[in-house]
């Protein structure tokens, strides 16, 4: 794992590492750095799809619930309004769409990030504490087919890092 001083060096280093053939990489930064996903060769996130499905479930389910309750299960004349009063059903349908979409957004985000995850090997590096403050890290995982403790280390040291550390698990 290599430590860098700012995000531009990090992006540059990541691009070079990826070009070198390493694939099991991850980069750590205190704020989102743009261009990193591309440098890491990542696909687009699937959060939007999850939200879309969640929102549709909420909306259709919400409308169906009201229609079923007011029209089928408990028909009741209120002020002469039709049993199936679609304009009056829109507000709740809307709220439930938003609620379900928002819940799927946050749950989807956590699930895709495998959070909560109380233990992660990178925390074993003392310097990593600064990853949330003002330092930028690039980690090559040992499971990468191209990984070799010595060669990878030498390679990382050629990328102008502040330091290179080994992550114990």
């Amino acid at each position, binding site marked *: 794992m290599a430590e860098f001083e700012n995000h531009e060096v990090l992006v540059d280093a990541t691009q070079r590492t990826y070009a070198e053939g390493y694939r099991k990489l991850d980069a750590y930064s205190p704020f989102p750095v743009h261009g990193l996903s591309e440098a890491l060769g990542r696909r687009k996130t699937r959060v939007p799809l999850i939200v879309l499905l969640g929102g549709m479930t909420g909306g259709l389910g919400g409308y169906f619930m009201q229609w079923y309750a007011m029209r089928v299960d408990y028909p009741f004349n209120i002020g002469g309004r039709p049993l199936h009063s679609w304009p009056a059903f829109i507000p709740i349908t809307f709220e439930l769409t938003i609620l379900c979409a928002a819940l799927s957004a946050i749950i989807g985000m956590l699930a895709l990030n495998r959070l909560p*995850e109380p233990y992660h090997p990178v925390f074993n590096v003392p310097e990593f504490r600064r990853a949330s403050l003002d330092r930028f890290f690039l980690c090559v995982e040992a499971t990468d087919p191209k990984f070799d403790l010595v060669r990878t280390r030498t390679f990382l040291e050629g990328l102008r890092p502040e330091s290179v550390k080994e992550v114990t698990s």
Partner: protein
Amino acid sequence: MADVVTNKTISPAAPKHAPSHTVANIKVVAPPAELAREPLVGNQRSIGWISDAIAGVAEGKTPMWWWMAFVPSVILMTTCFTMIVYLVSVGVGVWGPGHPVMWGWAIINFVWWIGIGHAGTLISAILFLLRQKWRTSINRAAEAMTIFAVMCAGIFPLIHIGRVWLGWWLFPIPNSNGIWPQFRSPLMWDVFAVSTYFTVSLLFWYMGLIPDLAVMRDRAKTTIRKFAYGLFSLGWTGSNRHWSNYEKAYLILAGLSTPLVLSVHSIVSMDFSVSQLPGWHTTIFPPYFVAGAVFSGFGMVLTLLVPLRRLLKLEDIITVRHVELMCKVTLATGSIVGYAYAMEFFIAWYSGNPYERYAFINRAVGHYAWGYWIMIGCNVITPQLFWFKKIRQNMMIVFILSIFVNIGMWFERFVIVVISLHRDFLPSNWGFFRPTWVDILTYLGTFGLFFTFFLLFLRFVPIIAIGEVKAVTPQADPHHPLGGAKEGGHH
């Protein structure tokens, strides 16, 4: 059309700061002083300083003023709970409402608090979508304010039902009598709107907090703090995978929250406007309530942040420019509210409906005219002072005017609820409304609840989004004329 896009970078998933499309031969000039945007972080502070300054608020020794504010807040909060216990054990008769003013302070306070709760999510969501970077210094505190205000608001509908243990009848669970809640009633829409709003605001706020809780975890000195912040930061590492899913989810939540904010107060307004009562039944209510809510919300944010930036020595992060921008939003929404008042009045006359006309004339010259004119004074005249830069930049005046806004918006709801109800269609149905001491103490008590939570938030949570502020410093922005020059290369 492909030739339009060639040679231009197609923006990657970059909601916050789209990379600059460096167009050929455009010279980068700093704007002339008077049109220059003030830097969002004053005095060219470094990103390390930001972490220290913000996290320091929650890490340092508890200052004296904090205790001086906290103790009375807790006492008030206790009063609130005592009043609730009293209300529940005796019955809703201890409150003022009665024939013909069947809705009293409870709904006024509910609408008032929930209106205040609109600024937080609005600041967070809409300003995020509009890429208004100035939001970063104030959104966290404003979101917290939203949540606490919605809590205060939620108390009133919950306890006004009297038999609170039957509150679950409001939820769409078929109960033992096989009866469903009445989905055609705006009061049911309210239940869904407010609970959705509370849930989503809480999630939005918490989600924004996760990376900052990781900062707190990594700075923590004691084991307890380490454990607590570690627990709530969920193991956040700041890896690219985390950030990219996180950013997308945050963008989507912002996108979802924006219509949600609009819908909540629109639905609250429909509690009134779908009825047939003159003064309540008017079509402009939804946008007018939303504008009023944003107006009062920004009023409350100013009331809180103007003294706080001084007390917490955060003047370089919550700058005068932030205050000025909030004043401008207050001016804009205050003008919309003024427009709505004028329209209601005009259309009441134009409609030719004698009841409509009477309702509005009665507001202006009737028994409760004083309430109406307080409302006009505070909501129509006060914000117009924000046209002047001198006033926007004078913190003392801004603070005082923001309190007027809060008062004015309470009276707006008073005018709508009490004045409209106290003169019914038939003169035999006319009456007055007088609040009881329980009404007054419950309302004051909610301030205790609000401030207790807000003060706890100040002590234990980073009150400003640390990661986001870092991203808006000139140093972090390679496209800013003042920053990013160190590494060159990138552009």
